[in-house]
């Protein structure tokens, strides 16, 4: 792997880590519950992108499947949390 690609992977990892820190801040400091759910939503999308970048960095396609799982479970959990905020229960 060329050094330029290795550097770009490292830079992308740092940028996505900072983005995840922003989402974590919104989870911890969100004034209301919907802010925390929004922070969680952006956190899992950033984690999925970080897994894709790991896959490019290591040259292994295994990370792709982990990223797909994270995307699926994050969508379901965001829907469940929003439904809980709306109704007070998840499955009626």
């Amino acid at each position: 792997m060329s050094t330029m690609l290795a550097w770009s992977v490292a830079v992308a990892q740092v940028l996505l880590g900072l983005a995840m820190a922003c989402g974590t801040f919104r989870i911890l400091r969100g004034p209301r519950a919907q802010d925390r759910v929004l922070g969680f939503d952006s956190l899992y999308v950033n984690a999925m992108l970080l897994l894709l970048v790991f896959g490019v960095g290591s040259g292994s396609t295994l990370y792709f499947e982990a990223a797909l799982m994270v995307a699926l479970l994050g969508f379901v959990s965001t829907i469940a949390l929003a439904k809980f905020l709306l109704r007070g229960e998840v499955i009626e």
Partner: protein
Amino acid sequence: MNDGLDIPVLSGVLTAILLVGGSALTLIGSLGLLRLKTFYERVHAPTLGTTLGTACVALASMIYFSTAGGRLILHELLIVVFVTVTTPISLMVLVRAAVFRDRSEAERAVAGAANDDGP
């Protein structure tokens, strides 16, 4: 990171540009999550990462694995399609919940004020 695959220079440059560009767009969206004032403004910010950021990073991954493996690999399209379809749905449900909570709180405040004014 040293056990990566060897790929031609042009696709390496494309992969690097798309990786850094997509991550920077995602970071800008998450910074909007940090800086905007109200919830209804903040809900717009991370969509920059879920649309353009995801598309750029997935395209970089597709280019990298296609040139490294010597055949067309389009796995990452699954992630792009899934995230693009599901983000508006989840955020719409979330905003509907936020509107419901804000409205019910406002009604409770009005009812409380009416009770205070009553005899």
